[in-house]
């Protein structure tokens, strides 16, 4: 009986061509590789995503919570036609991106979660995701939303996305934006980078283990800092408020 119910609950994935791994040099000189992961690797990624659910800055908490759920859904066959790409530097995971195929023409971008801030880590990995939809899957457009202002700057402004506000996005029903093939072609020379084939050494290192991020985004020191000065890493306001309250 339970086997029959599982057959009903579990969607039948479409067979999709794989994303061919690529690599690029970051501003700090390190080489970052972007590759597709299969279901078996999801448990190795989840713990690193989970930690970011507690980072109350730049919407990391909500993005991480949603990515966690999406990865879990992928792992347990509760989402149809999802794919997951990760970026690694020396084996260390630095970004996760994912999305879904709505139909042969339309893709649904889910999330871009940078586990190392700066260096265009998130931007490069997002570009790889769009490359997968437009170049590999040959789709006509990808529907996109952003939870954070940083995401808005990176996707809506840098790629000059078109409005598709009449289409609710799968993430919270928010109005969608669209990256069409034409827009992607325009951005190709400036925003989309990467080289193939990936050297064997890099591939081997990436596949050997998904290592934890060494410099992940960190939560503010306490709630006061979170609400008063999310990016003030000296916690200047916090220090002074505590002093006034007699705490130091």
């Amino acid at each position, binding site marked *: 009986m339970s086997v029959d119910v599982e057959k009903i609950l579990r969607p039948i994935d479409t067979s999709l061509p794989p994303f061919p791994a690529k690599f690029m*040099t*970051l501003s*700090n000189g390190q080489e970052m590789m972007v590759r597709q992961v299969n279901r078996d690797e999801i448990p190795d990624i989840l713990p690193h995503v989970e930690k970011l659910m507690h980072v109350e800055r730049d919407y990391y908490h909500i993005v991480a919570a949603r990515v966690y759920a999406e990865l879990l859904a992928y792992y347990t066959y509760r989402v149809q036609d999802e794919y997951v790409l990760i970026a690694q530097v020396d084996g260390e995971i630095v970004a996760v991106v994912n999305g879904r195929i709505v139909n042969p023409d339309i893709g649904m971008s889910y999330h871009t979660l940078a586990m190392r801030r*700066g*260096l265009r880590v998130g931007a490069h990995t997002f570009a790889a995701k769009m490359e997968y939809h437009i170049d590999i899957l040959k789709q006509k457009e990808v529907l996109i939303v952003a939870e954070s202002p940083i995401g808005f700057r990176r996707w809506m402004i840098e790629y000059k996305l078109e409005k598709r506000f009449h289409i609710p996005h799968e993430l919270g029903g928010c109005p969608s934006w669209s990256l069409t093939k034409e827009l992607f072609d325009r951005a190709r020379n400036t925003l989309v980078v990467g080289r193939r084939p990936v050297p064997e050494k890099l591939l081997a290192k990436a596949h050997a283990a998904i290592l934890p991020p060494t410099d992940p985004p960190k939560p503010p020191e306490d709630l006061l800092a979170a609400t008063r000065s999310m990016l003030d890493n*000296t916690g200047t*306001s916090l220090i002074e408020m505590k002093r006034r309250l007699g705490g130091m």
Partner: protein
Amino acid sequence: MREVYVAGIGITSFTRLEYPLVEIAAYPGLMALRDSGLKKIDQLYVANMGSGRVNAQTGLASAVVDHLSLTPAGAVTIENGPASGASAIKEGFMAIASGMHDVVMVIGAERMREVNQLEATDFVATLTHPLAEYIYGVTLPSLAGMFARLYMEKYGVTSRHLAMVAVKNHHNAMDNFYAHLHEEITLEGILDSPEASTNNPYVADPLRFYDMCPVSDGGACLILTTAEVMKKINKPMIRIAGIGQATDTHAVHERKDPTDLLAVREAARQSFEMAKVKPQDVDVAELHDAFTILEIAESEEVGFFKKGEGHIALEKGETKIGGKIPINPSGGLKAKGHPVGATGVGQAHEIVLQLRGEAKKRQMQNAKIGFTCNFGGFGNNVVCLTFIKEK
């Protein structure tokens, strides 16, 4: 004139701060009071460039002095473009030196990230000539781009030299807790790799993304006082020994040679002369590298290197921490950040730290003479300060 000393210092992170401008100004003031042990001041100067336009707040000093519960001290806001910070220090210096006041607080504060980057760039561009420059779309990056192109053609500076300034200053900022950018970069990553044009795109040719300072919020504070007060508070005797200020034509194209930063040269000369030291005596300097080319050009104009040889000294590593004359150990505007009105005070804050021996990993050993160059407009209003550590 009476001698003027730095009794206390304070600073916030130069980054995106999510609290009101008055508090950005007030917190470093509180820190400086605590650092000095002083509880009262006679006069407050607040340097700020854009609160009226960007934050819809005028009369900033009046708000800050009340916020700090320092009334009835006098309070004045000073706006002098990106040179507001050092200009306010100059006013504070004169107030003490003249005998009019004994304790003066100088704060620099700016909250630029309340608006988006395009608006912030436009706001800074309002310091250009309104009829000869601004109406044609001139911005500070565009002026710096043209300046850099001329400089490269005339003196052989290359894009690699500009990138070397960025790499150095990003590296220095890694050890500065208060810096905006904590991100190591390499020449390969921003210049040589196939991905460099995306990692480091052109913004104002020949200047690229990593040649530009970030748009920052931030505040910094110095408390200035007399030798007599210093004897009572047991702090290192850091004296403001020299101050120079000079101007140049408002419109850059009216200069005989736009690559000559005459105001920098003159302000530095005045400052060194007043301090009775030479450029070669300086142990550590903070120069106004809003764009990488400016660090090279200013290092020549202030007299550290001959004209046209700043990039050669850079190649030799003479401007690194531990080099002949370390420039921008804080990370400079390039990586520490550039909250315009606060920058000049932030530069002085770093020099005081260095002379006190409190700069931790980025400390220049046995530093006794420090120098700052706060560059307003596009070199049309420049203030240079020389600090000396006394025994």
